């Protein structure tokens, strides 16, 4: 009897499959971006104000920035498996990506806070403002102007880096496209679609960020 394979071409359900992958990519980006930004602001501020904390956290910052994300994902994956606890690849991705986002954001925050002229802070303090009043009303707004476009750049970098979590098995956009490539063998259209997807997300935002930057500079 002749053996007949099921139709391997595209189905309509594939569109839904890709859409879910795209939503997963966005979910990971937004969640890791949110956690990483909050963590990075706190870490960056602490590293700015306290030499002790700066020295203590330097190895963490240094190591996270000097090791490929791919290896961080694999290492955390193995470590969590060895600990014997059940975990999902989603949370694994969130842990690693937020940690990396925290580190890079903290460096931007530290640099921006450091760029606030010290005379402004002295002036605010001599007007009777407290430390946190000065921080929230003087330093933070000025630092935001300096760091905003760099932060947007980091967020876009994070969105592009989410493509890497496909390696540990979380089915985001890249992975779902790969699965479809394996089945349909339509490599080029699917791959180009993947590129276009990231480009459509990142390009307008980076243009807007450049526009903002020009507005701030002038």
């Amino acid at each position, binding site marked *: 009897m002749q053996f007949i394979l099921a139709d391997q071409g595209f189905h309509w359900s594939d569109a839904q499959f890709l859409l879910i992958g795209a939503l997963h990519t966005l979910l990971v980006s937004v969640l890791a971006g949110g956690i990483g930004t909050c963590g990075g602001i706190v870490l960056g501020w602490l590293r700015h104000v306290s030499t002790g904390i700066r020295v203590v956290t330097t190895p963490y910052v240094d190591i996270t920035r*000097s*090791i*490929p*994300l*791919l290896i961080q994902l694999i290492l955390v994956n193995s470590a969590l498996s060895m600990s014997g606890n059940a975990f999902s690849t989603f949370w694994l991705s969130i842990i690693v990506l937020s940690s990396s986002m925290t580190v890079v954001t903290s460096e931007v925050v530290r640099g921006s806070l450091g760029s606030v002229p010290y005379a402004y802070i002295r002036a605010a303090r001599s007007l009777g403002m407290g430390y946190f009043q000065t921080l929230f009303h003087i330093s933070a707004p000025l630092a935001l102007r300096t760091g905003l476009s760099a932060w947007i750049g980091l967020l*876009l970098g994070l969105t*592009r880096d989410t493509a890497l979590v496909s390696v540990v098995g979380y089915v985001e956009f890249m992975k779902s496209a790969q699965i479809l490539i394996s089945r349909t063998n339509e490599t080029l259209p699917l791959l180009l679609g*993947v590129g276009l997807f*990231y480009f459509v997300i990142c*390009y307008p935002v980076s243009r807007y960020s450049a526009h903002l930057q020009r507005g701030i500079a002038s």
Partner: protein
Amino acid sequence: MSGYTFYWSLVWDAWPELLSGVRLTIEITCLSVLFGTLLAMPLSVARQNGRGVAGKFSAAWIEVARNTPTLFQVYMMYFGVGALGINISSFASVLIALTFNNAGYLAEIFRGGLVAVPPQQLRAARSLGMSQWQAYRTVIFPQVFSHVFPAFINQAVWALLNSSLGMLIGLRELTGAANAAQSVSFRSFEFFLVTAGIYYLLAKAIEFGSRIVFRRALRT
């Protein structure tokens, strides 16, 4: 760690493979940064001048390189080009993809440096009888390099980290070699921890090494 015993001796047994992986990683990093720099210089000038086919071309190059994942660029060079019937080795794929990526990022970095060089310098150089090429090579770009060197070093470290993507298309660079070696024993944690350490040392070597080279080169 419930009842896990570490076996480090397996890693030392695979040391020769890891070392050849290190060599490949260094090769890819150095070559992709070198070619990327050479491509980024004309790209940044074309992007800065902005008009004509060259300006459009370099704008497209820079935006695509900066706004798509590096993983996509590597897959595109390997699977995408492969689908067109052109089969290139995984080494060449990674090298071309990373060169493309580096050129895009470095061009944008150089553009920031070009803005910082006063436009009178180019005009002065041209009126002294230098050709466009001479003026950029001997007057403009030395200044650009001294402006952007921290960003340049960062990009070189990024190139090192991105070379780890070679593993995903079967290249035995450091990550790929570690992955191949651990697949015999499934001691992935031990292998990748050592690999991470090697990457850290390589990244530090790039930072300190390029700082020394730049200081030498820019002192004159």
